[in-house]
């Protein structure tokens, strides 16, 4: 309890007075730490700086050498060697000034392999040097292929960073580290796969973390993998004990994350190029995503969703018709949504149309009356909405002298 604090400080004071040195605590005395030359070797890694280690690991290729058309990168003819799959391991999740990056990974398609480079920071004082290596990796990605100066579109020739939740977490944390060490972060074009995943699968799965997507959508089990929550603890244990055994599972977990990241990329490109062979993806969001690039295909998917009973898809299609002023089509859809799916929004659209376009007040009123009968007792706001319209229409009728 709080009362201990004074005593413990006394004890520390005594201990120091006796040994005559500062901070003679286990795990952090200089001799046990190992200075530059004595730093522990990390199996599989090469020492490239005082406190920075690196290794490159190759795997079977995950992506084809190129995509004829990439929806994710919004371009034609994407050479997959331009993509850099990127993930960090940090000492915490808070994203503030006290969160350090200690492991950074870059995965690329190179020479018909998928090659991952891992950079590891073995102690805090080495951060500046560690970040310098990362900066070089990112700069290289940003200016990738810039020797092909004949191509006009900047983006067509530079590398593309791919991450999962990188926009909200990894890049801001990295930016903080750079700012605090007084240097600049040059970023290439960045695609965060969390956004399309969320757009397509929100509501279908309760959780859309990288691990959850790997399990539920890619249908892959890692087996014996270190849970992400334990990673920081392993690093702290390594720092105190200087035993690289603590890190093995961290490194492999990290590599698995990057491989999965690449697989998710491949999956998404496949889904967007060929929706038919992915019935597991909900049609409505998929249709909306494709609608931007390919209206016909997008719309057909949305109609498919509507036909299967997705009310929101129906309302979306209705809205499209309304915008195009194809009233009959719109009205048919709304009527169907209202009668079969009790959609209140569809009812409101019908009333708007009857009141403001057709000026068929009788029909509107009788529809409102019918609408009341379908309301449940606690649906107060809907009742008030109907009241509002009814009153207005009745006023209009009166004014017309009918």
């Amino acid at each position, binding site marked *: 309890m709080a009362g201990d604090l004074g005593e413990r400080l006394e004890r520390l004071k005594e201990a120091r007075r006796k040994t005559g040195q500062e*901070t003679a605590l286990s795990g952090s005395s200089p001799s046990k730490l190992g200075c530059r030359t004595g730093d522990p070797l990390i199996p599989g890694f090469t020492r490239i700086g005082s406190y920075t280690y690196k290794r490159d690991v190759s795997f079977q290729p995950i992506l084809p050498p190129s995509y004829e058309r990439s929806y994710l990168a919004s371009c034609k003819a994407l050479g997959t060697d331009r993509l850099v799959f990127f993930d960090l391991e940090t000492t*915490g999740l808070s994203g503030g000034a006290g969160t350090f990056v200690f492991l950074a990974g870059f995965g690329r398609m190179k020479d018909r392999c998928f090659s991952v480079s891992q950079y590891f920071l073995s102690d805090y004082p080495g951060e500046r040097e560690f970040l310098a290596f990362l900066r070089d990796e990112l700069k290289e990605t940003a200016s990738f292929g810039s020797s092909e100066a004949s191509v006009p579109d900047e983006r067509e020739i530079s590398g593309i960073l791919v991450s999962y939740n990188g926009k909200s977490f990894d890049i801001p944390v990295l930016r903080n580290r750079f700012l605090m060490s007084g240097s600049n972060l040059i970023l290439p074009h960045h695609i965060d796969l969390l956004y399309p995943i969320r757009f397509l699968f929100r509501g279908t799965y309760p959780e859309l973390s990288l691990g959850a997507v790997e399990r539920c959508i890619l249908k892959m089990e890692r087996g014996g993998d270190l849970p992400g929550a334990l990673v920081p603890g392993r690093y702290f244990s390594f720092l105190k004990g200087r035993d690289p055994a603590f890190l093995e599972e961290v490194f492999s977990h990290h590599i698995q994350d990057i491989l999965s990241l690449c697989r998710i990329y491949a999956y998404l490109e496949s889904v967007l190029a060929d929706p038919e062979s992915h019935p597991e993806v909900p049609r409505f969001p998929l249709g909306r995503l494709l609608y931007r690039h390919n209206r016909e295909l997008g719309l057909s998917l949305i109609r498919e969703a509507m036909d299967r009973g997705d009310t929101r898809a129906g309302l979306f299609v209705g809205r499209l018709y309304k915008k195009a002023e194809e009233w009959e089509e719109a009205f048919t859809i709304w009527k169907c949504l209202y009668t079969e799916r009790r959609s209140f929004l569809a009812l409101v659209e019908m009333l708007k149309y009857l009141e403001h376009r057709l000026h068929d007040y009788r029909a509107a009123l009788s529809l409102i009356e019918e609408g009341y009968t379908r309301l449940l007792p606690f649906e107060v706001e809907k009742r008030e909405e109907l009241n509002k319209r009814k009153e207005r229409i009745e006023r209009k009728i009166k004014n017309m002298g009918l």
Partner: protein
Amino acid sequence: MPDTEQVLSELAHDQGFMSCVTHWETLPSREGIFSPFPSDVDPRIISALKSRGIECLYSHQAECYTAVRKGQNVVVVTPTASGKTLCYNLPVLNGLLERREARALYLFPTKALSFDQQAELNEIVLEGVPVKVSTYDGDTPSSVRVSARESGRIVISNPDMLHSGILPNHPKWIKFLSNLSYVVIDEVHTYRGVFGSHMANLIRRLKRVVRFYGGNPVFIALSATIGNPLELAVNIIGEDAVLIEKNGAPSGEKHIVLYNPPIVDSVQGIRRGVVLESQKIALNLLRKGIKTIVFARSRIATELIASYIRKSLENIFTDNERIRVESYRGGYLPHERREIELGLRDGNIRGVVSTTALELGIDIGGLDAAVLAGFPGSIASAWQQAGRAGRRSSVSLAVIVASSSPVDQYLIRHSDYFFGRSPESGFIDSRNLYILLDHLKCAAYELPFTRGEDFGGDVGELLGYLEEEGVVRFSEGSYYWSDRSYPAEQVSLRSASGENIVIIDTTKGRQTVIGEMDRPSAKELLFDNAVYLHRGQQFMVKKLDIENKTCFVEESDVNYYTDSIVKTDIKLLSRDSEENACHATILTGDVLVRSQVTKYKKLAFFTHESIGYGDIFLPEEEMHTRSAVILLPPDQASGKAFARVPVHLREEAIARVGSLLQNVAPVFLLCDRRDLGVAERLKDPETQLPSIFVYDMYPGGTGLADGFRQKVIDILNAASDLIANCPCESGCPSCIGPDSRISPEDNLKIVVRDFLLSWTAG
């Protein structure tokens, strides 16, 4: 136009009113001491000020401007309506126009005050001074937050936000912090005691981060009138400062009236209640067109007074006599507070009933009268509240209405005490180890510590302690934060006990959030079947769900309100130390302080008669904390002296010694009265002896109880001196508290004095 002078004259001739007045003090009007705009002030600012009717400066505003321009830290003592905002806005705005990258941080203790200041600043800015002002606090939406960080030249915030939002994320603020030139700390007198220690540490952290980015700001602190404004401010900002206390603003004649409600039962000596009496006085003033603020002691009183006034004005034909009165307190939703503040500023609302929330300097458009329903806790507070009334040149009135509490009754009858005493001083212990340690963790999270680096003094040992705890790592000469946690999350600057309870209106199937309340207060005010008043509307509590932090209420219309009965209990849990000192035994240990509401009274509106009781079934509010305990064993001088106290007075006597200690200890412990709790027992079940507990009011303790033990001899001797030399006759708020017994035969003060003298003499 209402004529305050006329109203005062009417009051002075009102027999009924005057028969209750114990003292009427007239403070003469004061001429202003003026100063022209300094020559280096940007013409855009001058023209903006002129268009708002400000043609020149007061002397203290000019002094402050000059000192800040020279790069000196400044402490300005400013009573209300002395133009304090210009003291800082002028040098800051000028500096920001001169240097395009410079930035300023304004810190206010409450959000309401921030909102008000932003509104005032915006008025100047809109008149052609191109400086972007942003607010950054808990209510700020995220899109606005980004813009505030990037381009806000003046950022308005509060200590809590600085602590958990800004400093831990300082790299995102790099542009702002590296160019930070001015830090304004308003209402610095509120940073006293434990809260003040937190603030001092927070400023240390701020300075550390700003230094890292190459900045070196000037501090401008504003204080109300307290005993030691310079000392307090210097302790908070950690640097020297210049004191400016001569107020150059003119003021109209001020009338302060001490009013004691009439006796309604002469046999029992019962007086008319302060709530009813205050609302009557306020109503009278409002009807005569006087803009009035009423300060009430509690939330219930605030709502009751406002309701009664509105009820009395109720008349659809005259639209409530066109007088709009609002109540104001914490627990209202942000937009409701804004609405009231705006209404006061533009005159829509003519009267307001408030708790101490509005005691702080929010500019609320010149009130002409203040009515205090009961004395607030300190002389300084009383003057601040009374000072809310009064504009530059007009006459103003403050009526202080006494409640039946002994302290109020003493003060109302001893006007020399009230007018003669200098206001209380504010103390902080900026080296309180517990608080320092918490902030050291936060500071280490923000930036690594190099060996030998200072943080309000040497912190090598504390860093070593943190290393032992495993949250920092020492490597190559620096201490790095090495833990996954976010320390600022675990440190609260105020002793908030968990999240608030949200109040939900479920009338007719609605689900609307109408307010919120902290948990301990919710147990006392929102128990099942309680009557809850919110801005004049009546609700009844259907269900208080503490676990889920919600309270469901429904509109109701009964003719009574409810008041709960709280019982407090203290229990010693451990004995960590035991020693003899000052002829008594002193223990320290952990204690459990419990307060429980078990019953409530139903009180009729207006008459406040009790019309019934109800039971409350709620878990106790518990707090584990540290306490020092003074025991009076029969074989030591203290116990022997106590045995000589007449039996029928022993309970009173020991309680009065407790009061004395509560008055004296804060001075030695460098804390605030509200940081300590005192409880006395004639025979404590654990110790089996007469016992006096002195405990920390913060869960877990903040070192005060242990500090008490270390200084107990000095404190007891000081207590004895205090009562021996106190000029009062039989007890006053400065020593043992007034004697409220009816026609006592013995003098309690003398009894206690002799007891202490013979105790300490041994």
